[in-house]
């Protein structure tokens, strides 16, 4: 039992390290966040995203106006990273926003999302509700420790 306890402490430390790494990664993302929400070269807009972490799952959502559910693609690109893409129903130009000093048009949404806790990507479920993409990722389960 004591061996189990020691392992659980190491496990805990590993989790702390993961949290720390995730926080550092978030800070790094924040540092590069001062970039436009659009990319003319790839004709992509970055959607607004949100991540909720509950006891059982991680729920990632993204706001995707001008999008139909059949044109949305969600891909797990690693154990802790998702790629979201969607072709828009219509192209949007800078001119549509009254901006005449830039040129470019956008036809899709694209972003990558870092999942902050271990999840089971294979059991991912994806929904599209009222223009909002909703991705459910069940959290990974470790071993259970018996309460003495």
């Amino acid at each position, binding site marked *: 039992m004591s061996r189990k306890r020691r392992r659980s402490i190491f496990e805990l430390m590993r989790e702390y390290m993961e949290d720390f790494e995730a926080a550092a990664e978030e800070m790094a993302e924040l540092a590069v966040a001062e970039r436009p929400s659009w990319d003319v070269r790839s004709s992509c807009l970055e*959607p*607004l995203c949100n991540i909720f972490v509950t006891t059982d799952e991680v729920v990632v959502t993204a706001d995707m*106006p001008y999008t139909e559910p059949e044109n949305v693609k969600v891909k797990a690109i690693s154990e802790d990273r998702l790629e979201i893409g969607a072709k828009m129903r219509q192209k949007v130009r800078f001119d549509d926003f009254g901006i005449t000093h830039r040129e470019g048009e956008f036809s899709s949404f694209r972003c990558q999302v870092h999942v902050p806790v271990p999840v089971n990507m294979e059991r991912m479920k994806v929904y599209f*509700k*009222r*223009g*909002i993409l909703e991705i459910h990722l069940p959290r990974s389960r470790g071993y259970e420790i018996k309460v003495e």
Partner: protein
Amino acid sequence: MSCVLSKPVGIVEKKLVPSEAIILQGLPDVGLVGLIAASHIISQLKLTEIAYVESDLLPPVVVLHEGFPHAPLRIFGNSELIVTISETAIPAKAIQPIMRALVDWGQSKKMRLMVSIGGMPVPDRQDIKDPQVFGAASTLSLLNTLSAKGVKILKEGYMVGPYALIMRYCAERNLPAIALLAQSFYNYPDPEAAAAALKELTKITELKVEVSKLLEKGEEIRLRARDVMKRTQRELTQMKKSQEYDLPLYV
């Protein structure tokens, strides 16, 4: 041009400002509900710019319209209605002095009613077809009026942000103020919530606002408002807006 100074914030009047008007606050907050609602009212009622907010606490930002620079926090109006709107996120640290200045200014103009339109974040917003609207008031008589008009009252809990301060400052001075908060997304622009709040507003006041065009333009608004929403979200985090989810402790 006159300026009511409530340092470190000044309100610069460009045109004659009506007395005893309804003042509507549409400041960036969750779901940009107030901002979207105020923007819709300004465009539908063709309100003109009558004043703007000057403060060193605001970021060094100007907004260009038709090639001319404007202050991001501006006040529009006609003879009966005044609408405050901010086209940029207000820094969390600037919210207290700016809200105090807006209430001071409203008081000096003998405002009939100050209305704050905002959102009430709900985690499952995408599952809600018709957002509910809740009301709060600065006086007992206004609270009774809201109830009599069928508005659900916010009885217990926390309010955080611009409208929270407006309600508190008005209650302290016994000034008439209400807040109409529609269930909304936290960090996605929510035109449907703005439309729901405006519908409630027309029940309470004599203002006539048509929301069908607002709903029709919903997708366009969501796309255009992404950047303001993103910057507003950072300020919401700073002001600990998520405390609105908390259960209050009363002893």
